[in-house]
């Protein structure tokens, strides 16, 4: 998106005095175009996150208990802290936009830097959360583990046995030799023409899943969604950082402040995504605990 801002900076690239890029008739058209472009881009973003939200909903519907357990394994207090940090950063961003519109460049500077600080604060908290999960090895993939105390909590709460990982991992994809005689002896009628088919890559056990893997799915989606959101926060920091730099070079005036506004829209979007992520991932199933 920073390149979109760049397109608008054409204004300053050319003969230095014209107030809009060469492809536009006037600054108003330029601003309108930028705004529509940003909204269209946000529509794309909604669909981009949308696919992940769909996956989240499907699996939550299918594995409600594991989603409950996953929710409990996240620290709602840190999530709450992050929500406040981001909401507050939205406020500072809104103030930045307002400052730019009023031409108060000093205040703009302060607001932008505050927003960056808050964004970093968000990332720091997120890093702590990720690090904690890393230490407990609650990272989807080969070394995924569930800390024993979490299993205890779960078993106490539901009075159920937590299903440990099956042997699937070991046999899936490994070279297994298919024996046409099978474990049951020869079948009565055999087709002749399959000599090449005696080796295949496939598990011999039936295909099914267990609690361990369902929980892994929760964390896979947790990391995918918060990770994608985190990337957006980082991009946002770069964008706001660019604004700070440009502001110090005196780019923004009462008349020309579209990049600030656009970045503002983007930042609010990032905030809104989190406002959905937080309850879905951290709070959703706490109600009946």
């Amino acid at each position, binding site marked *: 998106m920073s390149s979109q801002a760049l397109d608008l900076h054409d204004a300053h690239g050319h003969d230095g005095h014209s107030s809009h890029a060469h492809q536009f008739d006037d600054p108003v058209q330029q601003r309108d175009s930028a705004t529509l472009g940003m909204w269209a881009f946000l529509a794309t973003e909604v669909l981009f996150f949308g696919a992940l939200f769909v996956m989240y909903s499907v699996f939550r519907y299918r594995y409600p208990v594991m989603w409950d357990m996953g929710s409990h394994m996240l620290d709602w207090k840190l999530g709450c802290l992050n929500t406040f940090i981001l909401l507050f950063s939205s406020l500072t961003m809104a103030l930045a936009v307002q400052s730019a519109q009023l031409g108060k460049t000093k205040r703009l500077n302060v607001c932008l830097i505050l927003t960056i600080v808050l964004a970093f604060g968000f990332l720091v908290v997120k890093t702590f959360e990720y690090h904690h999960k890393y230490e407990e090895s609650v990272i989807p993939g080969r070394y995924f583990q569930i800390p024993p105390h979490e299993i205890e909590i779960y078993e106490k709460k539901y009075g159920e046995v937590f299903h440990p990982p099956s042997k699937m991992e070991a046999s899936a994809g490994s070279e297994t030799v298919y024996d046409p005689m099978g*474990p049951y002896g020869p079948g009565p*009628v055999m087709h002749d023409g399959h000599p090449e*088919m005696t080796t295949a890559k496939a598990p011999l056990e039936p295909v099914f899943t*267990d609690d361990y893997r369902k929980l892994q799915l929760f964390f896979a989606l947790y990391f995918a969604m918060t990770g994608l959101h985190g990337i957006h926060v980082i991009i946002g920091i770069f964008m706001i950082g660019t604004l700070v730099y440009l502001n110090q070079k005196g780019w923004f005036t009462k008349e020309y402040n579209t990049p600030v506004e656009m970045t503002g829209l983007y930042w609010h979007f990032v905030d809104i995504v989190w406002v959905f992520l937080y309850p879905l991932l951290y709070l959703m199933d706490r109600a009946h605990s």
Partner: protein
Amino acid sequence: MLLSLLPIPEQASTQSVAIDTLFLVFTALVVFFTVLVSVVLTIFAIKYTRGSKADRSNPLDGSLKLEITWSVIPLVLAIGAFSWASYVYFDLVHPPADSMEVTVVGRQWMWKIQHPTGQREINELHVPVGRPVKLTMTSQDVIHSFFIPAFRVKQDVVPGTYSQLWFEATKPGTYHLFCAEYCGTEHSRMIGSVVAMEPQDYEKWLQAGSTNESMVQAGERLFRDKGCSGCHAGNSSVRAPLLNGISGGPVPLDDGTVVPADDLYLRDSILLPKKQVAAGFKPIMPTFQGQLSEEELFQLIAYIKTLE
């Protein structure tokens, strides 16, 4: 035979006639519209080629009447075609109650089939003509698709779940069996044949194949050996639901919903006992993941379904 002039493959099942009829009517419709537009285009193309002496006075830039006509006619035809096709489709998704049940397990790159009487086949399926056959299918690895062109039936075979397909062969013969969903390197070798036989030949064929036990017998053995009977038998000390007469009937669950006890429900109850817990019972059953193959599951389910 008029049909032999048309590029219609052999019709060997009850459904194939209905589907071919639908296909031919669609084709008639397609040909009609293609010819209609082509003829009009050709006439215009010849008549109005630049330099031709044609009356070009009072041309037309648009006409609401025409637009409505050629929107409404396709709409009506489309809805009509949809209704008919859906009517035929209903038949395809509802296997008759008295169907003979055969189980199919797909894997890269072969079909493993078991008859109720216990006979096993690989890449071949023997069926009697004149009797509906219902296949319950699953896959051990990737998605496959069970396709018998002469019967006009096809169904994806998806790992982790059961899918169903039914047909009634009408003509003895040997027909192609293809895997239609791309499944890896030797996808095009995952083929075989379906042999439709007169009922008495089928009986003979069944007897010729030596089999130790029928599917139900195998299931009974598993029920015992895997310890199912320890809890699910009448004299058990553990409180577990009795399975007698469970098959097909409604099962009230502890979350208040009621589900039909179909094959998939039984499968899930064995592998994922916590997924749908019967009302009034505790979710204490251990999972049998990793202890049963897909074939054994089919046998166990076949046995459970016989419990009265």
